[in-house]
């Protein structure tokens, strides 16, 4: 199976053949997966320039795809994202790889669990968190054809199957005790953790805009307004949107994600990190039991 990055490169390369607006800006990373053409611009290890150049290309009328490893795309040049795209009011497609801890042996410098939360401080961004390589193509083709601001967060972590790409959340399983929202590649773990629990499972490959209406529908169909949010990045990133969606209900909301309290100075595997953050099936199952077990009492 192709990785998300491979699908990304292939989809963009194909789009460049038919859409003269599409242009790629890189900072060395992934230079080998794109063709050599004047529309693939490798600026060297210069991430501020990478984002600024992308915005300048957009100002000239093109559709820039700006790509690097997540911390170097979102965190290091964050003010360029805020000002050069947002304040200038131009569009672009930012595509990251590495996610929260895809390569944990590299340590904290190559981990960006806060990327979605950071983007979320800025107005007007669509955020896609695909959970399978087959979801990348449709999400990306739509993004390339538009003129808005899109953040596409790619990962080596994937679910066992893809779901059709829709604008809102997908109902994967229906139940009575409450709702679990699984974002991107955590879905398999959520399904395993909820196998014996009578809950609705919603799947989101797009978290901004947040499908508040889809969540409300699922909650109203359940017996309890209990929602467990499971995100593969910083815990609680979307909690405010869950609580806003359920503002007129006496709802219980709990969030799982990459924990905030301390920097985890450990290497090992991505699965080790899942376990440390209660994001493996065992950790999610424990949270599911606390929230939905014994008649829904915590």
């Amino acid at each position, binding site marked *: 199976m192709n990785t998300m990055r491979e699908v990304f490169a292939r989809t963009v390369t194909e789009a460049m053949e038919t859409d003269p607006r599409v*242009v790629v800006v890189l900072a060395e990373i992934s230079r080998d997966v794109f063709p050599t053409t004047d529309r693939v611009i490798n600026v060297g290890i*210069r991430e501020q320039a990478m984002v*600024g150049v992308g915005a*300048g290309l957009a*100002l000239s009328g093109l559709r820039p795809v700006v790509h690097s490893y997540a911390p170097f795309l979102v965190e290091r040049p964050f003010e360029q994202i805020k000002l050069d795209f947002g304040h200038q009011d131009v569009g672009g497609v930012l595509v990251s790889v590495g996610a929260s801890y895809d390569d944990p042996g590299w340590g904290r410098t190559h981990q960006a669990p806060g990327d979605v939360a950071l983007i979320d401080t800025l107005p007007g961004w669509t955020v896609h968190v695909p959970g399978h390589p087959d979801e990348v193509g449709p999400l990306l083709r739509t993004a390339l054809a538009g003129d808005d601001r899109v953040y596409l967060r790619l990962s080596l972590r994937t679910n066992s199957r893809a779901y059709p790409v829709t604008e809102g959340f997908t109902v994967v399983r229906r139940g009575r005790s409450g709702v679990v929202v699984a974002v991107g590649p955590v879905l398999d773990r959520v399904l395993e953790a909820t196998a014996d629990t009578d809950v609705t499972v919603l799947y989101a490959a797009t978290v901004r805009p947040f499908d508040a209406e889809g969540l409300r529908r699922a909650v109203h169909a359940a017996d309890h307004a209990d929602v467990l949010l499971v995100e593969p990045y910083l815990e609680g990133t979307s909690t405010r949107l869950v609580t806003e969606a359920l503002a007129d209900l006496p709802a219980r909301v709990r969030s799982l994600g990459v924990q905030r309290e301390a920097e985890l100075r450990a290497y090992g595997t991505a699965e080790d990190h899942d376990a440390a953050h209660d994001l493996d099936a065992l950790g999610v199952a424990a949270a599911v039991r606390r929230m939905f077990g014994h008649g829904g009492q915590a």
Partner: protein
Amino acid sequence: MTVTREMGFADIPELYGRMTGDEKHEWAAASTLPVLWVLYDRVLDVAPDRVDDPARDRFLLSKGHGPMAYYAVLAAKGFLDPSLLDTWTAWDSPLGLHPDRVLVPGVEIGSGSLGHGLPIAVGTALGLGLQGGEQRVVVLVGDGELDEGSNHEAIALAGRLGLERLTVVVVDNASGTHGWPGGVAARFAVEGWEATTVDGRDQDALHEALLTPHVGTPLAVVAEVR
């Protein structure tokens, strides 16, 4: 548009004064005014009725702080109704202490945070080139602004890519705390730019410098204002 006659440089003090309340001194001290005037009067292929024309030249004011000279020039050249200058910094005015491209016709970028305009200009120059245009891209930065490392990413990149359509004007009023030993122009020259230094208050010298031949390289004009 209520402009009934073509305005000239002699109108700048009054236009400037509509913002600051002072026609006598402040405009003359504005370090960016001479080069802004030369650009809009003699160099740039821009016009108020062509602000969305893809074929127009692009001028990016990266040093957005103290934009009164810029607004005054835009008003003198018909991009802004001069009466808008009276609204400067009011709640619903398009004219703030930093320019905003979304609010002001003819303004190509919003600026204020230093070090953003030059990388954006590199991208704009690349994009116009990919689309086969002949436009020039001119970006104005300050010598203090050059402290921001993002500029040096862009200077090296533009030099290596040989972005001929790109011109940087550095208004050098020696405002940087740590300075540039050997001169600002040397920073560009070593990266392969054509670089020239002129008296930033001499409009003819500025004009000549902005027309400096440069084949296969970007151009840096250091306008010294002391």
